[in-house]
């Protein structure tokens, strides 16, 4: 196994050298190519330029793909390691001498155990209820608020924006006590209200994002609407909303993930087993089993699966859509 590690390190080092070399050449090649375009050089130099620019293009390629591969590997590795570790025995996980990627006999029972000890399905349903109740309203309300900032006349815009943004700057710890008391008095404990209610007024960070996005959509499209006498609401519904698809898709995914992973607020307000979310169930599993790591990893992997499934199913709309349309710039 040590040999494998050494090989891996050598490969990484080679990659790093090629990346560095590629970087050094790519800027030079671009310069030379530019000279070529201007045509201000002689034939011999041209030949050299053609040679070196071809060489450098390869260098640039190696550099670019090198960075991409490394980033991808780094992004993926922890997940693979989690899955690999979830199939080990506790002894294999804490073996300092031998690092194993493929455990000798995969312990699928870890998954069975994690699945049966905690009520995953119930947790999943509760999480989904919160998702369904918060996302649609929050997205629409936030984008409408953003519209008021980005496309409508308003005095002291920056001041308003800063005041609203300041809400983001308050740590939850400092507001939690009065909030808890209020929710308790309202009888909201063990309901989803404390998690849903605050999002009904829109989210500041989403709004801020939409403002940046909407700035990229030309004002002219709305000027014409104004002359036509269309109301602001129609402008928002008929012109702005259809153009915000990618931005909304991105924020829906962000919010979905955010809700999915939200831990503290649910753990404070949901204490009845029937209403606990998936994340709470995972946390209870991980807290109680510091010594039985594979089991914890199995639980973590299970809670990640629906998230990844949804991500892979919708990434086309989200990653693709966002990238193709782009946030754009006001031209």
């Amino acid at each position, binding site marked *: 196994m040590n040999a494998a590690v050494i090989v891996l390190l050598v490969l990484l080092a080679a990659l790093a050298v090629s990346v560095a070399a590629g970087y050094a050449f790519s800027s030079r090649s671009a310069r030379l190519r530019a000279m070529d375009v201007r045509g201000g050089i002689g034939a011999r130099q041209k030949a050299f330029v053609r040679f070196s620019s071809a060489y450098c293009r390869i260098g640039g390629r190696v550099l670019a793909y090198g960075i*991409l591969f490394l980033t991808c590997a780094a992004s993926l590795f*922890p997940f693979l390691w989690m899955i690999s570790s979830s199939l080990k025995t506790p002894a294999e996980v804490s073996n300092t001498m031998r690092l194993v990627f493929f455990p000798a006999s995969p312990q699928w029972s870890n998954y069975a155990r994690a699945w049966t000890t905690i009520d995953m399905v119930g947790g999943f349903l509760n999480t989904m209820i919160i998702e369904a109740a918060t996302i649609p309203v929050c997205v629409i309300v936030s984008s409408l608020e953003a519209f008021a900032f980005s496309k409508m006349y308003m005095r002291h815009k920056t001041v308003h924006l800063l005041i609203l943004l300041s809400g983001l700057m308050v740590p939850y710890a400092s507001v939690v006590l*009065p909030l808890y008391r209020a929710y308790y008095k309202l009888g909201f404990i063990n309901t989803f209200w404390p998690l849903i209610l605050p999002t009904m007024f829109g989210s500041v960070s989403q709004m801020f994002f939409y403002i940046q996005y909407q700035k990229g959509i030309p004002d002219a499209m709305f000027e014409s609407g104004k002359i036509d006498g269309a109301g602001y609401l129609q402008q928002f519904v008929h012109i702005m909303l259809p153009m915000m698809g990618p931005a909304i898709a991105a924020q829906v995914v962000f919010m979905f993930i955010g809700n999915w992973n939200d831990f503290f607020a649910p753990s404070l307000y949901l204490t009845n087993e029937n209403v606990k979310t998936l994340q709470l169930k995972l946390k209870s599993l991980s807290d109680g089993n510091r010594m039985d790591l594979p089991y914890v990893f199995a639980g973590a992997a299970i809670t990640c699966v629906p998230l990844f499934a949804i991500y892979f199913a919708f990434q086309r709309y989200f990653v693709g859509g966002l990238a193709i349309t782009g946030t754009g710039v006001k031209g």
Partner: protein
Amino acid sequence: MEKVKIRPGRLKRKEGRIALAIISVKYVGEIVFVFVPVLFSILYSFTDYNAARETAPFFSRIGDIWIGFGNYKNLFTHFMYSEYFLRSVCNNLFMLLSVPLGIAAGLLVAAILSQPDIRFAGVFRMLIYMPVVAGAVAMNIIWRYMFDNQYGLINSLLGTQWMWLTDDWLVKTAIVIKNVWGGVGRTMILCLAAMLAVDGNYYEAAKLDGAGATRRFFAITLPIITPTVFYLLITGVIGNLQMYTDSLIFASGDPGAQTVVYFIWTFGIRRSMYGLAAAASTLLTITIMIITVVQFRISDRWVFEG
């Protein structure tokens, strides 16, 4: 873009009223869920309020427990608390590093992926974004295991025996690494979106002018995507200064990784010392506010808003 001060016309004023009506929804939400509770918190910070001890309603006792700026003074001078507080401030400042690093790394990846001749860009994009999707609790557990002093994969690969999770500086570095890892995808996707929207003609023109790839990036791409970078910077700094789970789950409360919000939770909630915690959170909020206002000010100069 109202550079010239002209008294707005009737139509404009009507528009302004409607805009205000729309954002008043957000104001209602903020007042109920943030501003009023914050007011409480600010009041707490001037008192010796201890929720475990008090049995009477807060306002009926406010005269008795009022201690003025005592809590603020204690944060910096009290023999027991000041050390914890000041250390948490330093830790927070160091961990801020992950914001620029994450943005730089995300930008680099986005710059490469935005090249038209990169193959499998979609696959790369999808995979690089995966860390953002994963749950914070799950990721903290797995990263903690990877950085583990004894069983950690990272020490094994490096052939070292560094105390990633207990050394004052290494634990902070580990958190920065983990957060850069978690942030690259988000930066990448948002920047990529902005980059792909840049008019290709700019690049052609620049190419003709002899600008290299690097120069083109700094001269054209970067200025155009500044609103996105600005957004990432502000939300990144705000989010980073409020970090808590990293100290709690990833570092299991190691002193080298305690953040200001961790301080607020341990003293305010776990020990019911709301006065002291409220003072710390008021200071934190003010600090974040100042940083944000400064960022807005600076952004007037460098953010390309067309």
